[in-house]
């Protein structure tokens, strides 16, 4: 694939004498953090600890609700961060579709509800190259068109 000029993939300077460690070509990619969870008290049995801010108990069946604001423009894959502690990976259906069936078996994906932020309520969620692009999302911004992965990690 021809790389686009907008992609940022810094050249990695392999340590001289240790090139063999990188010859397999494994790559790691990151989840950005620019989404907000709006129902964080409902997503774990015991809520969150007031002191350490980490979740208590198991993940409930409640859908993760993430706020989608202007700050998220251009984001394609990211992690929702709860209380600045636990990160919950969220991804577009487009990204999920990249995974093979076997890869999908290694984690559990659940639908996510998108909640437009108050300051961006009038912003079209599907404009330009913004993510996500689901046609359903144009008429219903609360359509569950992203998913969070839990388990298998």
């Amino acid at each position, binding site marked *: 694939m021809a790389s686009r000029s907008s992609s940022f*993939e810094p050249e990695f300077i392999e340590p001289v004498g240790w090139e063999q460690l990188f010859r397999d070509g*494994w*790559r*790691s*990619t990151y*989840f950005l953090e620019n989404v907000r969870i709006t129902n964080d008290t409902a997503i774990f049995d015991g809520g969150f600890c007031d002191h350490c801010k980490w979740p208590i108990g198991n993940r409930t069946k409640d859908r993760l609700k993430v706020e989608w604001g202007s700050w998220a423009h251009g984001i394609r894959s990211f992690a929702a961060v709860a209380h600045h502690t636990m*990160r919950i*990976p969220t991804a577009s259906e487009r990204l999920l579709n990249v995974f*093979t069936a076997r890869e999908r078996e290694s984690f559990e994906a659940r639908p996510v509800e998108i909640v437009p932020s108050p300051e961006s309520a009038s912003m079209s969620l599907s404009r330009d190259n913004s993510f996500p692009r689901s046609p359903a999302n144009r008429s219903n911004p609360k359509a569950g068109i992203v998913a969070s992965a839990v388990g298998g*990690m």
Partner: protein
Amino acid sequence: MSNAKVLGYGPQVVSRNAIEPDAGLFFLGGPGKFCLCFSADRWQAVKATLRGAEITSSSIAIIEPGEREESPELRPY
């Protein structure tokens, strides 16, 4: 995560036996910090499919199990 003089600061280091044979991806890290790792061919496929998604990536060092030292003694840096 390497913080040694040999590999410099930052490169992620994974023991080969921690990766399932023929795996195309795996998650690396824990609930507070993690990343998604792709094999070379899967990464090319992801980039081709998500053309223009502006996802960045970095190289991972793969070491053999015998190269991993459990509970190493502290050494002068």
